[in-house]
């Protein structure tokens, strides 16, 4: 018997039981669409993170204070006093792969203007800070070396701060806001950067670092150092340089542990990608369980079908179907169910991930590998779970099958 006849027999059998065929397919549809949606969304999120990190500057290098231990007790890094302005100077003067350096100090404060107030984080940097962190000024002017030297009370604010403190629509530039209890003059507004990794990059107040150190925190130490390498591929060289310079200036002996950490944006990128990659695999694994359940659904229905259609099988045998014709018919039926279900599932999955990534404002990624894999899995599901019932059908004794009631 030829394949087109077999195909005709199988699809007629499927059409004869439309509702049941549809319900059977539903399992596969749900399984496949959830796998596709999960994998696509996982990849969207990875790409979203990558774009975020890239927009922060791929040549960005951060120097953080090391975690302190005191007699085995982890003290965290918040009170560490390992980084100072001297380190900034040293990096600036002695690292040839480092383009710009800025100290960084921060404190959380309540911002107040008239009867409006807003909690925010105040960050202090030098004149290079804006360019290192890729902030741009929308209106107004940045602060100058003179401001830093004189601990001037001036600030640059982001759009979120503007919205919350200047809801009356008045021009913030030139006006005073209070940070804690100290009045600062707004001299510029930053261009919007949107969200990055779930953090509002516009909820920001930038002031000269010296102002925070002297007037607010009264400290000699800084929290972090931001550097930019001269180019992306010189990042690693810059990191090595920075480490040497800092070890020197901190007078660490050989064998001593670093009292600082140097991180590049690239490392962050790799780390975040591996985390979201792991999450993607996890989600896909969970989703694939529903695919297995769908496959078992097909097997279940095919099994019932064989019993229910014993008479039909007997008749087909009597009019000349060979065992293998019967077997192929049932295999083809289950494969068709799972493949059609799979195609519908793929379409649904792509739709779901499209809608979700639109809502989340993520880039829309179609995972070709997931689509191809799902297709293969579908075909395999149909054949694997259809095999046993088909075998059972093919081995029925035609005499008993014909007399079966």
């Amino acid at each position, binding site marked *: *018997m*030829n394949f*087109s*006849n077999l195909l*005709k*027999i199988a699809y*007629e059998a499927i059409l*004869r039981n439309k509702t049941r065929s549809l319900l059977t397919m539903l399992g596969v549809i749900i399984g496949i669409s959830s796998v596709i949606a999960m994998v696509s969304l996982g990849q969207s999120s990875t790409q979203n993170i990558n774009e975020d990190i890239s927009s922060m500057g791929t040549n960005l290098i951060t120097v953080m204070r090391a975690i302190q231990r005191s007699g085995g007790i982890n003290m965290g890094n918040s009170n560490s006093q390992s980084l100072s302005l001297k380190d900034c100077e040293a990096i600036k003067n002695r690292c040839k792969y480092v383009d710009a350096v800025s100290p960084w100090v921060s404190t959380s404060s309540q911002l107040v203007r008239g009867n409006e107030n807003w909690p925010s984080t105040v960050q202090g940097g030098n004149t290079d800070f804006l360019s290192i962190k890729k902030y741009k000024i929308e209106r107004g002017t940045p602060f100058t070396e003179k401001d830093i030297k004189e601990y001037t009370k001036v600030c640059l604010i982001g759009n979120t701060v503007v919205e919350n403190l200047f809801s009356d629509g008045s021009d913030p530039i030139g006006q005073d806001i209070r940070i804690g209890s100290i009045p600062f003059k707004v001299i510029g507004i930053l261009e919007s950067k949107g969200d990055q990794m779930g953090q509002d990059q516009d909820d920001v107040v930038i002031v000269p670092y010296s102002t925070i150190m002297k007037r607010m925190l009264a400290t000699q130490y800084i929290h972090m150092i931001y550097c930019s390498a001269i180019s992306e591929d010189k990042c690693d060289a810059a990191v090595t340089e920075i480490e040497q310079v800092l070890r020197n200036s901190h007078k660490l002996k050989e064998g001593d542990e670093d009292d600082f950490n140097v991180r590049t944006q690239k490392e962050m990128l790799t780390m975040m990608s591996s985390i979201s990659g792991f999450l993607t695999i996890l989600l896909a694994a969970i989703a694939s369980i529903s695919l297995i359940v769908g496959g078992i659904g097909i097997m279940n229905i095919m099994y019932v079908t064989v019993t229910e259609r014993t*008479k*039909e099988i*007997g*008749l*087909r*045998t*009597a*009019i*000349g*179907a*060979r*065992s*293998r*014709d019967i077997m192929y018919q049932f295999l083809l039926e289950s494969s068709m169910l799972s493949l059609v279900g799979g195609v519908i599932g793929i379409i649904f999955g792509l739709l779901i991930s499209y809608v979700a990534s639109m809502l989340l404002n993520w880039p829309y990624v179609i995972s070709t590998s997931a689509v191809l894999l799902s297709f293969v899995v579908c075909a395999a599901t149909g054949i694997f779970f259809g095999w046993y019932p088909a075998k059972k059908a093919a081995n029925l004794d*035609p*005499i008993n099958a*014909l007399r079966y009631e």
Partner: protein
Amino acid sequence: MSVIIKIENLKRYFQVGTETVRALKGVSYEINTGEFVSIMGTSGSGKSTMLNILGCLDKPTDGEYYIDGIAISKLNRDELAYVRNRKIGFVFQNYNLLSRTTALENVELPLLYNKEISAKERIERAQYALEQVGLKERMGHMPNQLSGGQQQRVAIARAIVNDPVILLADEATGNLDTRTSYEIMSLFQKLHSEGKSIVFVTHEPDIAVFTSRTIMLRDGRITKDVAVETQSAKAALEALPPSEDYN
């Protein structure tokens, strides 16, 4: 006249637990082309076993069965399927039509298992077979839209569509009322007059009178094998009082 079926000392034993049931204990007969034979017997006489072997659904324990010159006992399962598909047409007591499938598609069924027949030829032959049984107008009907007699006609069309050398009918009138039974027998007689060889298994003597020869089975042996004076089913139909069942 050539021999279409030759049965030689045919035996069929079944093993049931520790006992051996002898369903057929050495049966021999020949059927020539163009014969209309009824095989009669009570239940337990071995006529179902006989029919299964004639239909190549079962193989004899001993003895030989030739159909159209082919020795059945030497064939494997696939070859038996081939013989069923090309040489035999089955008509069953309960019609065995596929539900939710049109009459035409039901009749096409045997040809789907014959790869030498194109889709076009398949449909033409199915239409012609339905014409022969007088159901030209109902090709698109589903079995549940047809009466019992019409369903059996579809089944007969399905049995003749592959142009078999022998038609095997198993109690083909068993589920039908007298009038419809006579109609079906009249159709069989028409096919017979057109040259078809038919074996009709029944336990009803008043149906057997429409055939031309009766083989009587009892306890696995032939007790009688006689020519019958064939009565016309059409005449019997006309002799029936007007139907009260439906108008």
